[in-house]
């Protein structure tokens, strides 16, 4: 093994970790707010894909990455709203509905891509990517690894806001009550349906932003493989983080770190085959789950539609 662990390696690892985890952090915060309010949203992956396409397409046509970023959030929110309608108003099976979102989202993204980009399943690269934290000139030497995308900073700010909403505001308390015991929340005058509608729509919005964080910051365009599993990993990260915003954030970082490790180790003259290295993040997740997490503690009413007036 010929890897020298020095400050350069550490900074490189840190930079790649933050880069990989950013889209997942947005999606994970989306997943956490939906699940804590009591609605399973397994359609995060599909909502990310539609966001990734919208972000790249609007970014390309308008030339403004931020406009693309916002539109990506709105596109995700539309899908979130559909999911909310099905799972809150219609009380449909949330898992089935989420799977439908995962089919419709990528289907729509690729369909629209073919319509707008002459039959191609990938968009043209955007001219302006989302700026870096320290500008394009960057920092000196290996410190430049810390010149992360602005989206990475936004993801951290988002997480802090989420923690504040969850544990520092009355609305956050309502939100958690709705997910734990909707009937009790209802008797206190909390509008369960309204809270869930808002949460699931925000969930879609954040997933859409996560998708755009991929196609406007990490790679400059949308392609069919732009979102390949990040949404599912984000859902896993939320379960892993025990349905808390900070837990989800840390789980995403851990996952990004495992991927960064793969990249850094793969670069050296390492004897382990690259395919085995690529398994590392997933194997690591299972091992950590076995060793540390134990019984997951989901919100009690997660996945259960609420019928006003029903007896629990």
């Amino acid at each position, binding site marked *: 093994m010929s890897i020298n662990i020095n400050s350069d390696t550490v900074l490189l690892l840190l930079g790649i970790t933050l880069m990989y985890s950013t889209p997942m952090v947005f999606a994970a915060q989306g997943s956490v707010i939906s699940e804590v309010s009591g609605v399973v949203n397994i359609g995060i992956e599909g909502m990310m894909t539609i966001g990734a396409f919208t972000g790249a397409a609007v970014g390309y046509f308008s030339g403004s990455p931020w406009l693309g970023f916002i539109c990506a959030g709105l596109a995700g929110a539309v899908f979130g709203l559909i999911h909310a309608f099905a799972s809150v108003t*219609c009380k449909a099976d949330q898992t*089935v509905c989420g799977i439908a979102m*995962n*089919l*419709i989202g990528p289907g729509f993204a690729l369909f629209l891509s073919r319509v707008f980009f002459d039959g191609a399943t990938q968009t043209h690269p955007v001219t302006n990517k989302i700026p870096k934290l320290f500008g394009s000139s960057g920092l000196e030497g290996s410190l430049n690894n810390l010149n992360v995308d602005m989206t990475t900073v936004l993801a951290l700010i988002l997480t802090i806001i989420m923690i504040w909403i969850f544990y520092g505001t009355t609305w956050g308390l309502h939100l958690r009550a709705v997910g734990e015991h909707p009937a009790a929340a209802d008797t206190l005058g909390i509008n369960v349906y309204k809270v869930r509608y808002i949460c699931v729509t925000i969930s879609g919005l954040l997933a859409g932003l996560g998708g755009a964080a991929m196609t406007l910051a990490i790679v400059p365009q949308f392609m069919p*493989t732009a979102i390949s599993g990040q949404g599912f990993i984000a859902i896993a990260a939320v379960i892993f983080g025990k349905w808390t915003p900070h837990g989800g954030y840390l789980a995403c970082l851990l996952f990004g770190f495992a991927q960064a490790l793969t990249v850094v180790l793969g670069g050296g003259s390492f004897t382990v085959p690259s395919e085995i290295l690529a398994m590392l993040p997933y194997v690591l997740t299972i091992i950590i789950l076995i060793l540390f997490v134990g019984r997951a503690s989901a919100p009690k009413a997660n996945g259960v539609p609420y019928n006003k007036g029903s007896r629990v």
Partner: protein
Amino acid sequence: MSLRKKFFSNPFVLTIIAIVLGFCVASLILLAAGYPPIESIRTLVESMVGRPKDISSVIIRSTPIIFTGLGVAFAIKTGLFNIGAEGQYVMGCVVATMVGSMLDFPKPVAILMVVISAMLVSSLYAGFVGLLKARLGIHEVISGIMLNWISLYFSNWICGLDFFHKPGTIGMYPVNPCTYTMILPAWKRSEAGAAFMEQYPILKETLGRTDVNAGFIVAVIAAFMISHLLNRTRKGYELRAVGQNIHAARFAGINVNKSIVHAMMISGALCGLGAAFYITGQSPHTVATLSAFENVGFNGLSVAFIAFSSPIGCLFAGLLFGGLLYGGAGLQSKVGAPTEIINIVIGVIVFFCALSYLIPRFVERRDAARLNKKRKKQAQKAMKKGGAHVN
């Protein structure tokens, strides 16, 4: 229950409604994108069932997703969400190819060995998920997702090993012909076979041009066996009881942990069975390096949902799904509409399947309203009559 409500509660009727709605939404989208909707759908249906060769191809295309659909549906009936079907299918394919490329036995023995090894590995792979859930309470969705990715890279790793890698390709050595499960593969290439098929154009189109294989027949048998297991046996009762109410099942003396592991293993074995028949029954009889999932397992999820988790229903849902996937290619080449419209159609069908339970309620409410109206009218009439009588 009124007759009409009974009719609209039938899962088959509900699925048909969902399918019709799926095509309606797709038509609107096609219209908005500037493609002729009616012609597109006609082309789609024509490319699915237009020629005998198409029907045969649809059946072949559907076979693997019927198996994964069966696996997922079985897991749903027992209260488990087997999102790891994809990984179990990939593992089955790799193992089937590994074993099949080394074997040189008489036909039935060779096929049996491939099928058993693929089923065994897939069921163990799924059983691990069940074990994690039963013993440690780790959600089957998260471990399933992780194992999906692990299987993908495992498959690629095996593909690259010198022992299995076929030089000059991106895949492994194909399985030996002694494991083939196509129907009469040697005969149809022989002169006698060609001469015989010349007399029957249908046979020439289907058997001669496509990889007609035993997989679909096995899938039908498997569907009926799973249906029997679930509904007619003690084991099936126990598994379903755990799925319905885990606490009640435990109280009734059912070993819940064992049930979860067994249910996952059976679900995985079905995915492995599908993989074995895909590898032995369809060209190229091998596994190639994958850059992304081929979605056979994920499509099984949709099949199971469209079938409302009925094993027999999975046969039809699988054929529909396979048909749409196959016909989608024809749609793009003939009308120019993007083939991804198929994913939207299937997604919308699944979406409306999730909403479909509203339909019987809606019918009931309308029936009740009508009955009310009728009664009111009768009451009014009676009043008028009564009034006249008094006068």
